[in-house]
């Protein structure tokens, strides 16, 4: 009996074990299937995300690049191509004549050099002044340093017109704040207004530069600075030997933005130079008229438009070259400037 029951139990046991094993196997298989399915799903999901991403990126790039490409293409066209409805992207009568004419009309070498000089002057001065101010309020504790910082932020909120319009009057009758007899001398149509406001860190968006650099200096470790003091370096030596080299990414960002904004500036240029002087901006505005030998009636013509487009390409070409070389700094170093706090 016992053996019988024993075998019975054994049989039952084996049977259940077998069933269980089958069950487990089944489960494993199902799991595998599910895994495979989920992996398949994941793959589909991944692919569809890549496709949507690609569409998004291509669409946005198209919108950004389109106006630039149109100008570039137009600058190689003849007048006949503009009238030709079938020509859209590829000029039928490819020509470099527009560049020859525009180059001459803009007096490009001279106006380029003047603009470069003004832009470098402004951006180097702003770089120096904003960095110094940011270092002063970011690194030293003194009564009023928070207040100075809030003043710097305040300059960002005031519309530039509100300041520059009275400022241009002050520069027109500049008396060195009472030192010269009335009506003073006119500083307009010279580099002086640009130099004065850049050297004193109140140029275009200088508040932003001060903000960025202050964050940068605040985030730098104290030990280095203290070690320099212990070694007997003075405040200024510590600044330019120890702190400045560590702040290079921030300095590059500020210099680049200041350079680009000054190059592109329309506002200060027209108000302080009153549309005079041999700068790219004025050259670009006058290019079409000059190319037409001063014939005002043709200013609305297609040809004038082609010249204008060529001029715009010539105007932004230096920036594009700069960007091509420096874009790594533009894109990557702003992430290290600590602008996000």
């Amino acid at each position, binding site marked *: 009996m016992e053996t019988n029951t024993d075998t019975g139990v054994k049989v039952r046991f084996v049977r259940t074990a077998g069933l269980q094993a089958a069950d487990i196997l089944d489960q494993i298989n199902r799991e595998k299937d599910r895994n495979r399915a989920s992996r398949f799903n994941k793959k589909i999901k991944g692919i569809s995300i890549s496709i949507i991403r690609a569409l998004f990126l291509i669409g946005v790039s198209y919108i*950004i690049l389109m106006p630039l490409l149109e100008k570039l293409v137009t600058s190689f066209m003849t007048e006949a191509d503009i009238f030709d409805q079938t020509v859209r992207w590829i000029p039928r009568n490819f020509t470099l004549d527009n560049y020859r004419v525009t180059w001459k009309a803009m007096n490009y070498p001279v106006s380029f050099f003047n603009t470069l000089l003004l832009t470098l002057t402004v951006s180097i001065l702003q770089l120096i002044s904003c960095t110094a101010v940011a270092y002063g309020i970011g690194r030293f504790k003194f009564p009023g340093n928070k207040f100075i910082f809030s003043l710097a932020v305040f300059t960002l909120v005031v519309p530039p017109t509100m*300041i520059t319009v009275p400022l241009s009057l002050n520069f027109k009758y500049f008396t060195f704040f009472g030192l010269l007899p009335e009506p003073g001398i006119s500083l307009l149509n010279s580099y002086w207004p640009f130099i004065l406001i850049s050297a004193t860190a109140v140029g275009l968006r200088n508040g932003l530069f001060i903000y960025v650099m202050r964050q940068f200096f605040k985030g730098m470790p104290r030990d280095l600075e203290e070690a320099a003091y212990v070694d007997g370096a003075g405040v200024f030596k510590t*600044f330019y030997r120890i702190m400045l080299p560590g702040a290079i990414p921030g300095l590059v960002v500020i210099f680049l933005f200041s350079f680009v904004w000054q190059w592109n*500036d329309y*506002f200060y240029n027209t108000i302080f130079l009153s549309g005079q002087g041999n700068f790219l901006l004025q050259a670009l505005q006058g290019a079409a008229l000059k190319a037409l030998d001063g014939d005002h009636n043709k200013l609305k013509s297609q040809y004038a438009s082609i010249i204008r487009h060529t001029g715009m390409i010539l105007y932004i070409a230096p920036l594009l070259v700069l960007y091509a070389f420096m874009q790594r700094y533009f894109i990557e170093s702003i992430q290290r400037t600590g602008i996000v706090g």
Partner: protein
Amino acid sequence: MKKRLSFKQRRILAGYLFSLPFLLGFTLFFFYPFIQAFIFSFNELVISREGFVLNFNGFDNYGYILNVHPDFLRIFVETILDTITNVPLVLAFSFFAALVLNQRFKGRFLARTIFFLPVILSAGIIIQMDIDDMVTQLLHGARNAELIFTGVGLRNLLMNTKLPEGFIEFILGAVDRIPDIIRASGIQILIFLAGLQSIPPSIYEAADVEGATGWESFWLITFPMMSPIILTNAVYTIIDTFLTTTNEVVMLVRDEAIMGAGYGVSMAMAVLYFVMILIILGITIKVSSRWVFYQE
């Protein structure tokens, strides 16, 4: 006999010395003209050979720009409405673009390069010239003709959804604005990207171990961690759209001063504009400080 300064005193002195350029610049080239702007707005300014003379005329300039000036009120209101619609769109777009550009994929560097190109190409003169250029308009017309089909299709599609009409108009308006929005988003994308990379990856790993889905970790980690940066960006975008030198009100103020109704009227416009910017910034910061999350 020179008294030797203590270390602390020397540091205070150095702090002032470093800040000196800005203190000078702020006083002479910012605060002084800033006060002048207010004074001018209550005066008639006459320019003569010997300089300029102010004739006090009370609120005449303000009365003139609000009641008589043909364009000011319209441009003023349009600019405000424009900014109020643009800011959320710019924020949404640049946040989304930053999320995409933060992923790993082939051609990421190229994509970033193109997305930041508008920062370089934002020359006021070019925007200005484009507005009155014939060929650009021609090409624009061609582009519009291409777009008109999608535009009409979208309108019909949306009308069928029985959504509120105001919402549909907003969507259609947003579609029209897409190019402007994209071009105004360069720096905001940079700031968001920097923010995204400052979130420690360990938080995501922990969430992943706890079984959070990507959707959950976006709303529970990314979004709250980014909320201060969203506020920063909102303030930046508002300032940028209001103060960009190609803004219509900014242009109008300048043109009135130089060749229009004079400096007094121009400064009255500037003062009103300034006050309005302060109000809008104040509201933005007040409203958003409620949901901004600070880690500390």
